């Protein structure tokens, strides 16, 4: 994420990044994926951010809400940030849950951050058989210790997932319940 953070800073300076307010209510994220939110979020858009949508409550250098909306078989999971020499992480529809979580571990460690899986459990997500996991991460850029939670399910060979992480002491506890509530409203059609 170091590259991502630097990219956001740089792009903000040069006016290439945009921030859009996401209002309360039901948000259709794509043809098949819907979530409902209470309270507004900020959606960041800048070159290279895909395939995830990046939302933030406190600012992208503080917290990130990553939305993976129907990742297809063979699609790269990580953003195009970094020096271009880092490994890409590719989703395969045949992956069992534990490999999908390993994929997220790779994506979130791509900046050499330290990632630790705290818990993984079955979780009905979007009306499908899915999974929920908790993790800790030490961001390499600034050594901030983050806490995170993720939800996901594969349906029709596509991966739908929500990940949220924030500094563990103040911001994660502040927004965890809000994120859990959003995950509970997810619908995959």
């Amino acid at each position, binding site marked *: 994420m170091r590259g991502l953070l630097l990219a956001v*800073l*740089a792009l903000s*300076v040069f006016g290439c990044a945009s921030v859009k307010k996401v209002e309360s209510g039901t948000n259709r994220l794509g043809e098949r994926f819907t979530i409902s939110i209470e309270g507004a979020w900020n959606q960041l858009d800048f070159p290279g951010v895909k395939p995830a949508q990046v939302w933030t409550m406190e600012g992208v250098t503080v917290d990130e809400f990553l939305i993976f909306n129907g990742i297809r078989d063979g699609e790269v999971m990580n953003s195009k940030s970094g020096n*271009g*020499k*880092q*490994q*890409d*992480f590719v989703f*395969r529809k045949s992956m*069992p*849950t*534990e*490999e999908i979580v*390993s994929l997220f*571990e*790779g994506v979130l*460690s*791509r900046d*050499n951050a*330290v*990632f630790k*899986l*705290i*818990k*993984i*459990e*079955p979780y009905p997500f979007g009306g499908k058989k899915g*999974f929920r996991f908790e993790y800790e991460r*030490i961001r*390499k850029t600034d*050594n901030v*210790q983050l806490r995170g939670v993720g939800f996901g399910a594969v349906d029709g060979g596509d991966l739908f997932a929500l990940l949220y992480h924030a500094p563990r002491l103040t911001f994660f506890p502040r927004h965890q319940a809000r994120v859990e509530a959003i995950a509970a409203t997810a619908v995959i059609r």
Partner: protein
Amino acid sequence: MKRRTFLAGATAWGLGLVSRPGRTADDLGYSAPPRFTRPETSGEEGGLWALMDREERNLRRSPLIVRDGDLQSYVQDIACRLGSDHCPDIRVTLVRTPLFNASMAPNGMMQVWTGLLLRVENEAQLAAVLGHEIGHYLQKHSVERLRDIKSKSAIGQVFGLFGLAGAVGQLAVAASAYAYGRQHETEADRIGAQLMHRAGYQVGEAAKIWSNLLAESQAAEGKGANGSLLFATHPAPPERRAMLEDIARSLPDGVTGEEAFGRHVQRYLDEWLNDEIKRGQYAESLVLTTRHIARKFALETMHYHRGEIYRLRGRDGDLDLALGDYRNAIENDKPYPLALRGIGLIQRQRGQRKEAIEMLSRYLELAPAAPDALFIQSYIAELNS
């Protein structure tokens, strides 16, 4: 000093009987400068020291520091033997990062990354890298590098992006860690080899490091190949390896310290290998784990993690290879719990219900509080139904 006397000294040192062996006369004649005094803060070098002091304070607060007094003292002690009279000025910090790298700042702050500790095979190889960095320190290469960087116009862009304070900090780090010129590298190699020799290590181990890194690099596929910063910033052409081999021939004998090194890093291997695998550079990680298996180092740990690499890579035939490694990791009386999990997960995928249930159940018996316990229970329930 006669060879027999030297060997006796080196052996005694290897056994921990003496803290610092004397210098040998039959080396390449390098004479280290006297200990450095802190330069005036108003000067260029003094400013760099002050900045690195600040970087060091920040580093010491980092959650990425390996805060194990025993391991830290062990590496510090090796650096001290190499640094000799400069020992009091060298401060080693171990940083949890899965890349092969070490660096030394002009104020004496030395960083050693865990990716390096995972890759070297003995004390002598570690000493080769530390000695090389101490060589840069003794010759003040980073100060020269700072002057060189400052003269380049590109630095203005850095100021523009990060602001003055950030830029100076970045500059200081860059000066200490990145892109020494070929002449500096060669000089540091030669000095490092002599420091190794004087400390009683086998200088021939230095060239082996580069052979091992080259093997990883050659196995790497496509972009993302070899994340080693040291490799990226310290180019290691075959002639460099040859030069180290030449030096080794003129500085024979010495110890490798393999047993002591293995004993000190053993308890961290799982953590470091987990970090290594998360890089997603499976071809490189396979070369690394296969090399350690070939030298019969931490066999169960290495077999389990190589099995994980195969399972996660998932190419044709990889699951069979993973199963083979997992089974090697559970051979003895005390099976490696995560290897049981690995077998269970693969057999579940393959529809081998009976063995999947057995292995996953055994895994939970041995690791009831595992992070994935609830998930594995759901798999067992599903298999039973």
